[in-house]
């Protein structure tokens, strides 16, 4: 049990800190949440800065253009960038955390050369076209069809909840290439250009009022066969690789941010006098234990991943379950700190966050689905219905 960092790791941290201190003051102001082109420019601009400083794709293997950093270094990177108040991955989320690592692991040399550098440089943004109106938790029941026509697939169907679809250049798309095969067998993983003829994006309004995600209609979209990652009909296996990255370390930086929010809540409660309410005070204290433990759980998972060559394990599901509920608890407490009146004011800090936090137990696999995974894959309970 060693929680100390090696000299090399501390040096990495110190250099990163120094760079953050010099890079952050020059950043432009954050765009309005509803300004999608502005957000894309902001997020990719930050990615470009990281690239130029040598911090892009830190945890990607070196032969995929990454730095081949250890999981611990990646952890330090997430901790320090969050602590410094640096921008979050934002629109680069899917490219950096899902599609990129998947292509690095499963793609051909040509595919890696084509797609990975622009993700690292912030030149191209990806989105994730997995979910469909009739296939959410039960992803393997997806129906979007891809029919081979010469060197192309002709894709028709509908996707939904596609985050960042409005500003994406590419989509990691799951399609059914063999309707006769058993559900999990006839699926393929494609990279689709978002400006291809036949792609229509219709923004959906979230309960927070924003257009975070969209519906995507696909009408005979032609996707070159060479844009398939992995073998035809082997897309489910490729998808499992994608999802393990999604649940692995994707939320680590946010834990640091939650701890900062918690401090801010305590400061606000002290200022307003609500700190004298022992029930509220103790509730914030309990959340302190929660987010500290989540940080330790991350270090535990990273230590495990380090020993198994960097592939995140099922520990990600344990983390995601606990974290998504803790985050909702955090903003419930925030509402109490604000008080009944201010908690209704969308211009007050934390009120929008409270609304956004509602998605955490749904997106990236619902809590119910995570519990199934924990019960069946970690505890070995029988598969059931």
């Amino acid at each position, binding site marked *: 049990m060693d929680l100390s960092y090696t000299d090399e790791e501390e040096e990495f941290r110190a250099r990163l800190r120094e760079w953050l201190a010099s890079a952050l003051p020059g950043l432009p102001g954050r765009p309005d949440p509803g300004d999608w082109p502005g957000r894309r420019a902001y997020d990719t601009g930050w990615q470009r800065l990281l690239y130029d400083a040598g911090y892009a794709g830190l945890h990607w293997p070196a032969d995929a253009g990454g730095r081949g950093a250890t999981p611990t270094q990646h952890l330090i990177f997430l901790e320090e960038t969050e602590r410094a108040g640096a921008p979050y991955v934002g629109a680069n989320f899917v490219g950096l955390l899902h599609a990129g690592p998947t292509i690095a692991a499963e793609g051909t040399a040509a595919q890696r050369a084509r797609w990975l550098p622009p993700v690292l440089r912030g030149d191209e943004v990806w989105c994730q076209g997995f979910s469909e109106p009739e296939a959410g938790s039960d992803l393997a029941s997806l129906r979007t069809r891809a029919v081979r026509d010469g060197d192309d697939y002709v894709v028709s169907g509908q996707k939904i909840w596609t985050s960042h679809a409005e500003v994406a250049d590419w989509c990691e798309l799951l399609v059914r290439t063999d309707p006769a095969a058993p559900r999990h067998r006839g699926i393929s993983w494609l990279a689709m250009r978002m400006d291809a003829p036949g792609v229509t994006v219709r923004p959906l309004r979230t309960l927070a009022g924003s257009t975070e995600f969209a519906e995507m209609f696909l009408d005979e979209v032609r996707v070159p066969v060479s844009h398939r990652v992995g073998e035809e009909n082997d897309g489910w296996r490729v998808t499992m690789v994608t999802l393990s990255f999604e649940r692995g370390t994707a939320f680590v930086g946010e834990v640091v941010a939650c701890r900062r929010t918690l401090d801010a809540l305590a400061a606000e409660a002290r200022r307003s006098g609500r700190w004298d309410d022992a029930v509220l005070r103790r509730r914030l204290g309990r959340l302190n234990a929660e987010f500290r433990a989540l940080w330790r759980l991350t270090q535990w998972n990273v230590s495990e991943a380090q020993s198994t060559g960097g592939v995140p394990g099922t520990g990600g599901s344990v983390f995601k379950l606990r974290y998504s509920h803790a985050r909702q608890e955090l903003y419930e407490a925030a509402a109490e700190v604000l008080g009944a009146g201010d908690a209704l004011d969308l211009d007050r800090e934390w009120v929008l966050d409270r609304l956004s936090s509602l998605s955490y137990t749904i997106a990236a696999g619902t809590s119910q689905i995570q519990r199934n995974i924990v019960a069946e894959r970690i505890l070995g*309970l029988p598969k*059931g219905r």
Partner: protein
Amino acid sequence: MDFRLSEDQRALRTGIRELLAGRFARDRMRATLDGGGGVGRELWRELGAAGLFALRLPGTAGGVGLGLPESVLMFDEIGRSLLPGPLAATELAAGVVKGAAEGEAVVALAEAGRPVGHLAQADALLVLDGDRARVLTGGALRQVLREARPVRSLDPGTPLWRVPDLAAHDGEPLPEGARLRREGALLTAAEQLGSAARSLEAAVQHAGEREQFGAPIGAFQAVKHLCAGMLVRAETARTAVYAAAVTADPVEIAGAKLLADDAAVGNARDCLQVHGGMGFTWEADVHLHLKRAWLRSGQWLTAADAEEVLAADLA
């Protein structure tokens, strides 16, 4: 950073697990508890010989010279086994109370306003009053025992006494009372962890064997989700307790105790539910884990105290 257990730590854990499996197997545990609980002196000595109490004493003082993480791993195993006795208080008194390090002495814990466990068997009493600590022995201890009234204890493993007024009894003051209280909380949290893990195992085993509606009940999602929740609780608490053992940070220890108490109590309750009617019987062990978990939740650092420590830490 490598948070995983070292080879030596694994070996230590395996060693104590095997010792307890051999000397405090289930039939022995049930016999002890049916006999009114209390400390088994012989096993207490064996644990002393195995280094449980002297683990953190320096070699020059006849100890093993290891740290809190190792003690935590040992107490984790003890928690699984339901071994009764004031283990944490005795460990903390090693080097202070004669015979504690060797397992010759039993040092009971007395906290203001709470019933005292194992008083009749105690060779010394560690009295905690907030962050002040002192040790009572000899005549003072006998006087406390005379005034004490037995309580019909909720936990069959832990005989309890109510002591009228601890403040009236002088003892030898101990320095660093705050540290003793923290470390006692951490070791107790480790016991809670072992109990939480044991409850999870029992639930998973039962869920895989018991059949209803033509299938093992573990195939039903309602049961599966209870078990998954138990794992999440136990693992979150485990990392909190292990990390607190490494850092010995007061705030982190408070968090560890809070989460470990939750894990032990919550997991025992859910385990009981998974066992159905069986779970409500005296025969199933789950009530023993629940009762002990409740007892430990009220020792060293209660939820209310821990939450205040954690709140005060916020900027």
